[in-house]
């Protein structure tokens, strides 16, 4: 039942930065492309996906209902008010961003036709699509964009507040042009200003005092290809085609129905029996992956998690002896067979971790390597550190708080315990439920636990709060383990403002090396949640947002 599995979330704290985000195509070529109108070449593969399909002989077909799964049920279907994964999966069909990200984390225009960035990386000028209407018929204009950025997101989203606080001013030079001026250059700005992290809400409905309790939260009004028509709590959510969608003839689907099925077995049954055509995120337990891979009417992909970049690690409270000893942490890391974890627990959905960053995250350094799996060496290291085994072969005992988000995480904790046993570390389990887990992490009331974090493209948005000493505080999803290395603080601070990609690479490479040396966390695997679709379903995963895309080109063949 513990299918209160992993709420992946896109909200993750971020600090300042300056400079711009480099798309691979930088300099004049990029500007030329943008001037050419709707982002042509750089993003062409992703805009031409329909044509792709046509090229393959499949013509997009109008009509049909897509039934999907959703786990767990979102508490509320309003962007910004809630940032859990399932919420985003649904509201991303209703609300749209200015731009989104390609699988290589390049930028793909959505409501912004094009944009330019000033040379000092401080002024961002967005040109908007002109025929976009909200679901209530009102046109979307620059005012809505400015309201969304400066009021809506600033009020509701912690992360947006951190990123958008860099904005000095936002102006509408005409109804379809927005000019954003930053106080100073901030390197990851574009990674906080797109995708599901910044979508446009209607000013005319939300320009009121209490955004969180706005009555319109119950009936979200966006610009997206689908509208919310029915939500039976605990049962299903029904979205229906937006007939006035700004892309002609799109979307193709008539309806999307999200079924809420709290039991993982029941979800697997639903997928297998064809009662649903799409499952992703935490819908299907990893155990079921091989079975579904073998099933001929389904296709399974691991793509679509490039932006979120989930990384699982074992969190260590560095205040607890002997976990404060880096040799102990290294030994623990060496005792873990990450390939076993990946193959036997996650059934190869992902890759083993090599350091604090995922391969898809910007400035990942492939030369950084974790110490290899080696029980003997780990034992030797512990001996050297002075932790001798007693008569029953136990060096010391630590507590471990499993992540209460589902079976596989429990298995991981059991694997951790069994592995630690092999190097003479006795692990006692300290189970708690999800509500208690966060609270105890925040209170530093743990010795070891498991967590997984989203890197959202850039280390300065997704990672730094877990590593810098200014984030050692009694708040969960920060540096609760008490890791402190002045050099890391310095590297991450510099990287925030560095404008030159090469310089950032240098800074972040060093950060990755230190993170592996200090081993504040035992990095385990780079996860990606498989997405299961019936073969009839096309164009589901086309961006780095995966199933949190807008689905305006998804169709049932």
């Amino acid at each position, binding site marked *: 039942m513990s299918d209160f599995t992993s709420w992946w979330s896109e909200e993750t704290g971020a600090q300042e930065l300056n400079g711009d985000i480099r798309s691979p195509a930088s300099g004049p070529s990029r500007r030329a492309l943008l001037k050419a109108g709707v982002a042509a070449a750089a993003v062409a593969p992703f805009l031409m996906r329909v044509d792709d399909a046509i090229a393959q002989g499949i013509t997009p077909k109008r009509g049909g209902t897509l039934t999907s799964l959703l786990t767990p049920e979102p508490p509320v279907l309003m962007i910004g008010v809630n940032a859990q994964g399932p919420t985003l999966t649904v509201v991303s069909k209703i609300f749209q961003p200015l731009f989104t990200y390609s699988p290589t984390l390049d930028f793909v225009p959505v409501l912004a036709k094009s944009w330019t960035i000033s040379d000092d990386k401080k002024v961002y000028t967005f040109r908007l699509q002109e025929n976009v209407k909200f679901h209530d018929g009102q046109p979307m204009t620059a005012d809505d964009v400015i309201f969304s950025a400066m009021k809506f997101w600033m009020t509701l989203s912690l992360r947006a507040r951190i990123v958008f606080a860099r904005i000095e001013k936002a102006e509408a030079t005409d109804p379809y042009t927005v000019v954003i001026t930053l106080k100073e250059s901030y390197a990851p700005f574009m990674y906080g200003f797109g995708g599901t992290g910044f979508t446009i809400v209607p000013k005319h409905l939300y320009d009121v005092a209490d955004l969180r309790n706005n009555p319109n939260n119950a009936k979200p009004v966006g610009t997206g290809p689908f509208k919310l028509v029915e939500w039976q709590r605990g049962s299903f959510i029904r979205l229906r085609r937006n007939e006035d969608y700004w892309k002609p003839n799109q979307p193709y689907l008539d309806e999307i129905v999200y079924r809420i099925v709290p039991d993982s077995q029941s979800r*697997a049954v639903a997928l297998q029996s064809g009662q649903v055509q799409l499952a992703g995120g935490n819908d299907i337990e990893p*155990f*079921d992956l091989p079975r579904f891979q073998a099933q001929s009417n389904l296709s399974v992909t691991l793509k679509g998690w490039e932006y979120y970049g989930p990384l699982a690690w074992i969190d260590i409270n560095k205040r607890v002896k002997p976990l404060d000893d880096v040799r102990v942490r290294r030994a623990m890391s060496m005792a873990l067979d990450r390939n076993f974890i990946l193959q036997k627990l996650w059934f190869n959905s992902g890759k083993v971790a090599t350091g604090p960053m995922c391969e898809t995250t910007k400035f990942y350094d492939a030369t950084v390597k974790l110490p290899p799996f080696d029980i003997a060496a780990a034992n030797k290291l512990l001996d050297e550190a002075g932790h001798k085994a007693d008569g029953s072969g136990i060096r010391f005992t630590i507590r471990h708080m499993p992540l209460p988000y589902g079976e596989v995480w429990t298995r991981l904790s*059991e*694997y951790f315990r*069994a592995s630690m*046993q092999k190097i003479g570390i006795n692990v*006692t*389990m300290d*189970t708690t439920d999800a509500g208690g887990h966060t609270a105890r992490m925040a209170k530093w009331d743990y010795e070891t636990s498991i967590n997984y974090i989203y890197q959202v493209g850039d280390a300065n948005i997704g990672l730094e709060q877990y590593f810098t000493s200014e984030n050692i505080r009694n708040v969960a999803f920060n540096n609760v383990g008490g890791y402190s290395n002045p050099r890391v603080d310095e590297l991450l601070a510099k990287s925030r403002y560095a404008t030159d990609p090469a310089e950032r690479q240098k800074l972040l490479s060093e950060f990755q090396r230190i993170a592996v040396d200090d081993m504040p966390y035992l990095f385990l695997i780079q996860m990606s949640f498989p997405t299961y679709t019936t073969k009839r379903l096309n164009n589901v995963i086309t961006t780095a947002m995966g199933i949190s895309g807008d689905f305006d080109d998804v169709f049932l063949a």
Partner: protein
Amino acid sequence: MKSFVRRFPRMAIGSAIILAVIAMAATAPIFFPFSPWDMRGSPFEPPGSPDFLLGSDALGRDIAAGIAHGAWVSLMIGGISTMASLGIGVSLGALAGYVGGRVDDAVMRFAEFFQTIPSFLLAILLVAIFRPSIFSIIAAIALVSWPPVARVVRAEFLSLRKREFVQAAEVLGVSHMRVVWQTLLPNALPPVIVLGSLMVANAVLTESALSFLGLGDANWMSWGFLVGSGRSVIRIGWWISVLPGVAIFITVLGLNLLGEGLQTWLNPRLSKRDMP
């Protein structure tokens, strides 16, 4: 012995099952001299494979070892929680039934209170509050299962107090404590013993349901844990859930048979008629 088996077949079968489970628990360290958490081979080996008599689970742990070691935990949880709730129930029930009046009223309201809140929900809440551990599980089960005991004991006490042999003790000048201990309790006990055997069964079931919901103690291998952990992979390895489930079933069955047997054994009026 033979005639006992013939006269009380249920009790004989029930006791045999329970003795077998106890024996299994006791011999677990001999037949499986390793931790049931040890990963001893490849995952998802079906029952009957060379390394694993009853198959292995998702981490390559031995199901047979899990069932054998888990027997001890399940029985311990069942036994201790039943003892505890019998303790609470008997004392409160005896107090209410013997003292009567306002004390009786207060105790009965208290019991009613516990019976009004859905007991399984309350157990979930208690375990979550005290953090899932073997102690909180035992405490939660004990706390939600004492009211029936208190009711039974109270009813027995009330009816016994009217019985002439109890009044005789009173007239002889026997002290309150002696009346309660020597006269009332021994006579009130048979239904409590029957109830107790059923409560052990219930506790085993409740523990497994809690583990199933992820509220078990991860330091102790229990049957409920096995069933719960195997559920998500039931299609890859049905045996991981089903075999421990069968163990639970057999134990609960044994306890029920034992309870029914005790009932007929301790109640001569039923024993003639109810015997199949």
